[in-house]
């Protein structure tokens, strides 16, 4: 999948050409128009929420961190020169701040999970998984959610970041590499290692009939 297609898939609003491009909103914010930044918050809060939430598995931490992320972005928006897209820049801030937070938080924490949307019942992946795996069919949704989050939390922060962006948010390797300021090879290697670990943790759900 090429980057353009992926962006449109992730942001349906992009397919119909956003009324105001990010670059213009950024320029207006840099000129001191706070309302322009509000528009950027609306545009990115949902996606960045997902990124931070899947890395922390805690709704309250995510909320606090996301506030900090946007506050930091607003404070340092004058330093944004447009060398990367605003999207990449925001994601870099979010990932770095989340990893720093997780390092301070350590291993001792309690999960505070969001509700699972009822739309999952019609998801082809969910239907396919429940039709092939007995344990998955028997497990209720909250149990599956808990297991998935536990497995994610067993990964290192860096591996969890890559899995979140690639598997959950569907970003291409190239975009992840830009956000993490690393090579695509490193991204692929981290993914390979993380997937192998996750397969062990989720063995009971992966075992085929």
């Amino acid at each position: 999948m090429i980057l353009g297609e992926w962006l449109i898939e992730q942001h349906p609003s992009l397919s119909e050409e956003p009324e105001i491009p990010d670059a213009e909103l950024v320029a207006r914010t840099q000129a001191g128009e706070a309302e322009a930044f509000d528009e950027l918050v609306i545009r990115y809060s949902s996606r960045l929420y997902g990124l931070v939430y899947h890395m922390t598995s805690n709704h309250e931490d995510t909320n606090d961190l996301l506030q900090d992320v946007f506050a930091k972005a607003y404070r340092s928006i004058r330093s944004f020169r447009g060398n990367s897209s605003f999207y990449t820049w925001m994601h870099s801030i979010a990932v770095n701040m989340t990893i720093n937070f997780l390092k301070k938080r350590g291993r001792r924490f309690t999960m505070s999970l969001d509700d699972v949307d009822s739309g999952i019942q019609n998801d082809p992946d969910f239907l396919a998984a429940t039709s092939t795996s007995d344990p998955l069919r028997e497990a209720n949704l909250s149990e599956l959610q808990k297991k998935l989050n536990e497995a994610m939390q067993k990964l290192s922060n860096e591996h969890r970041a890559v899995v979140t962006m690639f598997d959950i948010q569907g970003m291409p390797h190239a975009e992840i590499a830009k956000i993490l300021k690393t090579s695509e090879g490193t991204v692929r290697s981290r993914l390979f290692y993380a997937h192998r670990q996750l397969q062990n943790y989720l063995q009971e759900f992966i075992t085929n009939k």
Partner: protein
Amino acid sequence: MENQEITSKLLRLKRYEMPPPGYHEKFLRDFQRRQRAELIRTSPWQMLWEGVCSLWPNFQVPRMAYATCAAVALAAGAWMVSQPAGSDLSQQTTLANLNRVPDFSLEPKTPVTISNTLPVSGGSPRSSHYVLQPRPASSDSPLSF
């Protein structure tokens, strides 16, 4: 390979974990409130520092900067203490004074004279004495002048 696909599909299901409805609208309001509060709290120096940092985005305080500053301050302090307080002459005088053994003998080496001194008053010297009031001051009436 098949296991990896199943793992990926399971992970993709995490997309259905969503915050409560209306969360993002509330988030923006909270963010605006916080921005206003921060604006009040932020000191002018902090704002100036942030402005400087935004001009040089890659500027960071080097890791060992604080330790280096402390070491320099200590070295400067040590150097200042080791320096003489004044000129060489005063240093010699000070050293001479330090090396001199103090004289504790009770016999005066030179006689003390009181020539060229004048008496303060012409009368005979009187020892100081106190006169008690006939009645204590506490027994005075407050209105008596």
